[in-house]
């Protein structure tokens, strides 16, 4: 094998490893929801090419209010779905849209766009 081929192979395999690590081995700490005076755990989520924050930690058994604000026109993100809680909301651009639900048992849930392209995680922790 010529040196250039060895180089391309090594760099290529390294790139594969880097891609796999970058996309699949992220372990975000996440943002813990703050408890408001009305008893709701509240987090503001920015919708722009993804969800920021995309990992949200909440306590089990206390109501949660996620405030979504979409700042893009791409049709992809026009709806957010919390399938496990049977909740969804249309997100008009530039408006704050609250989605409320009560997380039961501790566990991990997803919130996604309708196509499942944008994803966020909701970690329900024991209170």
């Amino acid at each position, binding site marked *: 094998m010529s040196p250039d081929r060895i180089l391309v192979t090594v760099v290529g395999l390294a790139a594969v490893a880097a*891609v796999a690590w970058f996309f699949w081995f992220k372990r975000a700490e996440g943002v813990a929801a703050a408890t408001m005076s009305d008893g709701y755990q509240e987090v*503001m989520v920015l919708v722009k090419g993804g969800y920021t924050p995309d990992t949200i930690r909440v306590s089990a058994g206390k109501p949660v209010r996620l405030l979504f604000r979409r700042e893009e026109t*791409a049709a992809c993100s026009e709806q957010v779905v919390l399938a496990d809680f*049977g909740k969804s909301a249309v997100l008009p*651009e530039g408006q704050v849209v609250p989605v*409320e639900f009560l997380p039961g048992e501790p566990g991990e849930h997803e919130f996604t766009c309708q196509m499942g392209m944008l994803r966020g995680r909701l970690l329900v922790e024991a209170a």
Partner: protein
Amino acid sequence: MRSTMTDHTTTCHPAAPAADSPAARAADPPGTAAASTASAAEARQAERQAEYRALMRKFWFGAAVGAPTMVLSYPWLIPGLRELFPMGSQQLWYLWAFMGIGSFAVIAYSGNQFFTGAWEGLKHRSANMHTLIAIGTGTAWIYSTVALLFPQLFPSKATTDVYYDVTVVVTALVVLGMAMEVKARGRTSEAIEKLIGLQPKTARVVRGGAEREVPVDEVVVGDVVVVRPGAKVPVDGIVLEGASAIDESMITGESMPVAKAPGDEVIGATINGTGALRFRATKVGADTALATIVRMVGDAQASKVPIQRIVDVVSGYFTPMVVIASILGFVVWYDFGPSPAFAYAVVVSVTTLIIACPCALGMATPMSLTTGVGLAASHGILIRSGDALQAARRLDTVVLDKTGTITVGKPAVTDIVSGTGTTDADVLALAAAAERDSEHPLAAAIVAAARERGLETAAPSAFEAVAGHGIRATIDGRVVLVGKRALLEADGIAADALEAEAARLADEAKTPVYVAADGRALGLLAIADPVKADSREAIAALRRLGLRVVMLTGDNRRTADAIARAVGVDTVVAEVLPQDKAHEVRKLQLEGRAVAMVGDGINDAPALAQANVGFAIGTGTDVAIEASDVTLISGSLGGVVAAIAISRATMRNVTQNLFGAFVYNGLGLPIALGVLYPFTGLLLSPILAALAMSFSSVTVISNANRLKRFRLQGVSA
């Protein structure tokens, strides 16, 4: 900052989606929710329109630059240009440099969403379609520019071809695909937008003794609302006075107008016929049947079909997998491919990135679900979620509650037998006059039958109830007896002539009521809970769909069997106590059957909840029945047939879409990677890949839209 946001959500009127949450609804003044739903739908449509126009502008710019770029990339193929720009000439270099600038403009303007989208995704360590297109077109442009500026970096002369045409044409085609997608997506949600559009804007209410036209938001519960002939019923209510027939097809799916008289329920957004009505508003704003339907349909459309969860797992890995495949493709082609290896490797990896279509995969089920749920709603069928839809496809047994589901649920006079010398009208009129003051449930049926036929009923001068047997009344000096045969016999009246008819009626599960006057038996009335007009047909249609039909009733075996014979069910379970209905459903499930339970939603709630799919039937304005998976607004059993047929069609559509998306990606990716090259010498061009990619996502949406053409022919009338 946070507290400001909280204030915003509790004190301002939230937009429609916000009205989804109970808390937000509670904070909402009555009446605003429906209106804001309508304006949010308009806003969404406007947003889509703007998005479409923006994408089309980007496409036209890309196309305008793309057409000459494609031609000028291969000037040596075209006579005339061949002489002007010979290979390796200075002129050609300048031409390509000019194309490089043009294609950069296309990337920056038409393709900017790919790069910003990819960048936003990378910040979240996630990859999407934008990532693939951005890397693909970006690689092609950078490679071409490097080849143009630093040809000495490349070992052979042939390597220094440029691929600006790939950059421009791929960008234009993918943008065109996105524009078509936005347009088609709008069509999938037409059904719900049509529902929202039904909401009337104003109402005529009686305020301070005068009729006034007010915005529908200002109608409150208890208002007396006036509906003129041909006008829309503004909110839900109960008729106080007047008579008319109302077209409820837009809500219930029933095409026949429904007669309304005082005491009847009217549904907002339906259209009044030729009579004038006054009614008392009982539900307004977000509580109306229409607003609830819109909310339920919206929720169901956004829910997930269980199969989608598997797709979600796949698509979570899909995009990075494609990036990895394209890197490996590059390495393999560079190491083992033909010369010029570097150019081939670049083309293969770019083609791989571009042909992959995560969108087709992601859209496959939501698009079909949105269309299917909307289609059902237009037939007066509310499917609560994707789970219900998927479960409805697998049903093999339908359990029907008898009373109120197969039958009307209210006793009525079904037959009149008159003896010699009298007419049916005489028999009925006399009986109705005698029963006028009775409180027996059968009496109400007789009085109603006489009123329906427009018969005059005289007031009895004397009235006596003979417990367990019937009544004795004096009308215009005649002594009239209405009741069992024993009542007549006690007075020494012979009823032998009517005996055979009475026995026949009893066999049909009808209750015979004897009528006698002046010491002579005049005739018979038969009273029964009549079978709904279309029950028989609907049950036959259910059986044609391959379902076993079971009837469940608390009635005695004889009545149950008579009804079963009349409508043609397979199995009858009689004498079931109301609380045991759920148990009967469970028994069928233990036999391994997937059971649908059809009932009235209130008495049958436990059985509806136990069933694999619970259908609440004939709910009128009370559409949000918690125990049911499917709500049928009209009372017709035909809705069950339609709901099952639509579920099957929708799930078939989902399967087609998923199959298509998987097959497309499963075939497209290996071909792009060049597996056919060693055998056929075939290598896909990135431009064809872009065409295929755009076409695949549009195909998925078009297939979902095809569902809208679904007709219930042959399934139900």
